[in-house]
């Protein structure tokens, strides 16, 4: 199992390298280190969101409300910044994470206490959160000239030659890696994804663990709300509309099983990078946006087919064991 997972991530890495190589044959500058770092920076928000989604998917759930959460939180912090430019950006970031986590907790409570399927809960809050963004803003935009310089420029600063936005992603990767592999919570998330019944017998509270996963996905959505708004310097109700599916796609391409329990931080990151590369490269090598969608879609299907094959192999082992029992 572990070697299988490793293999899967090595395959994904190979696919990414191959993709970069292919693009480089048409447009050599793409593969230059500086450009690859730019692509990484451009994909940072997707990476952070995919990590949050991964925590949820591993528990056999899904969070479709992430993009709406992002839009609402982004709108609130942008409006706060416009109204009170003297509030430090660090506080606004904390506020964004807090609001995002609260929205995630709302999802989590409905899943935990009422036992409603996550896909239904978050399909509902997908609309509710975006609607709330409309309500707080009255449909108005917050434009660049209303935002403070600190608000806009924080992520554009450089530390050790890398933009701060990239550092956000790197920090998220590190935190999630530790969370998933070095904490009891991470272990519980995997355990309830693989075998919820056994997890209950082991004393793991399945509902509570799912709740925490939703709080995590909400928290990163909130954080990305700030990052998104300050990157594209406009806050509107339509921000990141439909992006929830891109986040799920990154996870699926990264080998995170929609059935739960299988997946890793490395997978989520590479899944996001794969999409980031396609989105950045196809325009420069003059492929029409229509093809971009088709190519992204094909990548998702291919990933699903490969993962399904991997899991079938695992299934056979289970069957053999079940027959022995």
């Amino acid at each position, binding site marked *: *199992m572990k070697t299988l997972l490793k293999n899967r991530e090595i395959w994904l890495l190979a696919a990414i390298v191959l993709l970069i190589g292919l693009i480089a044959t048409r447009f050599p500058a793409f593969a230059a280190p500086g450009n690859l770092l730019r692509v990484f920076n451009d994909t940072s928000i997707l990476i952070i969101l995919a990590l949050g989604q991964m925590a949820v998917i591993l528990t056999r759930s899904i969070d479709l409300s992430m993009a709406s959460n992002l839009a609402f939180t982004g709108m609130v912090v942008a409006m706060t910044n416009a109204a009170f430019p003297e509030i430090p950006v660090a506080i606004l970031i904390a506020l964004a994470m807090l609001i995002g986590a609260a929205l995630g907790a709302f999802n989590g409570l409905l899943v935990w206490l009422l036992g409603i399927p996550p896909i239904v809960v978050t399909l509902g809050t997908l609309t509710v959160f975006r609607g709330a963004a409309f309500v707080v803003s009255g449909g108005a935009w917050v434009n660049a000239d209303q935002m403070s310089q600190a608000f806009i420029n924080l992520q554009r600063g450089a530390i050790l030659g890398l933009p701060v936005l990239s550092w956000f992603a790197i920090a998220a990767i590190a935190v999630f890696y530790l969370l998933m592999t070095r904490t009891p919570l991470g272990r519980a998330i995997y355990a309830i994804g693989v075998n919820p019944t*056994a*997890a209950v017998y082991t004393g793991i509270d399945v509902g509570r663990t799912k709740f925490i996963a939703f709080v995590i996905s909400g928290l990163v959505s909130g954080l990305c709300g700030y990052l998104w708004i300050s990157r594209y310097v406009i806050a509107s109700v339509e921000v990141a509309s439909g992006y929830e599916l891109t986040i799920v796609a990154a996870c699926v391409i990264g080998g995170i099983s929609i059935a739960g329990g299988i997946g890793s931080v490395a997978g989520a990151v590479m899944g996001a990078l794969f999409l980031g590369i396609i989105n950045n490269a196809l325009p420069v090598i003059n492929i029409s946006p229509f093809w971009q969608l088709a190519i992204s879609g094909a990548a998702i299907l291919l990933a699903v087919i490969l993962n399904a094959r991997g899991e079938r192999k695992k299934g056979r082992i289970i069957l053999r064991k079940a027959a022995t029992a």
Partner: protein
Amino acid sequence: MHASAPISELRQPKSAAQPRLTLAGITKSFPGVRALSDVSLALYPGQVTALIGENGAGKSTLVKILTGIYQPDAGEIRIDGAPVKLPSAHAAFENGITAIHQETVLFDDLSVAENIFLGHAPKTRLGTIDWRRMHAEAREVLDAMRAAHIDPTARLRDLGIANKHLVAVGRAMSIDAQIVIMDEPTAALSAKEIEELFLLIEFLKDEGKAILFISHKFDEIERIADRYTVFRDGEMVGEGLLAETDQRQIVRMMVGRAVDTIFPERRPTVGGPLLEVSGLSHPTEFDDISFALRKGEILGFYGLVGAGRSEVMQAIAGMTPVSAGTMTLAGVPIAPKSAADAVATGIAYVPEERGSQGVVIGLPIFQNISLPSLKRTSKHGVLRLAEEFRLARTYAERLDLRAASLSQDVGTLSGGNQQKVVIAKWLATEPKVIILDEPTKGIDIGSKAAVHAFMAELVEGGLSVIMVSSELPEVLGMSDRIVVMREGRIAKIFDNDDLDAETLVRAAAGIAA
């Protein structure tokens, strides 16, 4: 006549008709386990044959072979003397074999008539379903069964279990099934519904159907069956006419076996009461359960499937809320609300289903073992992998776990070694009381002996063990005392000296001595 001919053919009374269905020399193995070994069975038209045997005797495997779900490794199935193959459930259906299960397998959201005619609905000339005819024919079938109270257009969901059984039988009638298997059909029925079911079985007999009736309840078998077949450990050990035998003889056939397992020699040093359970009750599963587990004791729990043993254990382990009753552990009142609570107080419950409730396949061995002990192996909320490995290695060695590496997926282990991982996982929580629910179910003889030896070692080390087991030799061979449960209540608590298997089975089945 050939020596291996089924006994049924030898013993069959001359007056009886030819069997409708005959099984001869049926053998079915799963890796490591022989579920059925050269068994024979005969079902006669217009007669009910009761299939009797302990849990694990091979009854379910036989039903699955008859309904085309499993393929026998060897042997022959004959219908009206002609050999048939049943490669699929559909083939069994085509051959007129139908099964009615404990929980009827029908479609809740379809109507009664649709359920009866699913797959063979009357069609119009255009190929669409002829609803009028389907409802009329369903009406006829139900009327013939004296089930006039069932409306063919009603949704199945709105019917009680007894009426669902009637619909299942109606389906059998509609395809003119000649062989009807009833797998513990009374398990979920009330006394009145059971009476109705028996009327229905009488009707099926009058229609000349051959019926296989599986039940744990002797009073039902006496009441309805004409013949019996007894299975034990996957072998057919006796059959005949019920009129020519009595319950004592059947019980003897069920349990009488060669001793093929050697249990560890034990000199129990039993101390004072450790876990005291008093008046534990649940609204539907069990009532007034009182017993005391003493320090250093193995307390066996025996009973038929559905006697409520596992449910009681789940309550003690904090998994099921109780409606009344108290528990004390070493004199201190406890009321665990979750498995985590129970583990914290020192009670570990090793559940019955190793695959679905025990191991977490997909996680490596060491992570399985440390899963309930993560609080102890982490510091400031951070896991210490070295600590986890040390814990896992300690218990893996104590249990003599055979694995190449503790990092390998637990799914790659054999059943016996998986069971060791599950037990190791719970021992690592350092419990005072460990509850083992069917600890050797479905594992090979060697692993069984290892688990038994280990249990003996545990109690010598001062741990107290509750062992739920349906295997008589195991219960008798390992327990210091035995609690027998029947229909959610404690029937009797025996001291295990000079106790014989028949006494236990009689207590479990509620047969007077």
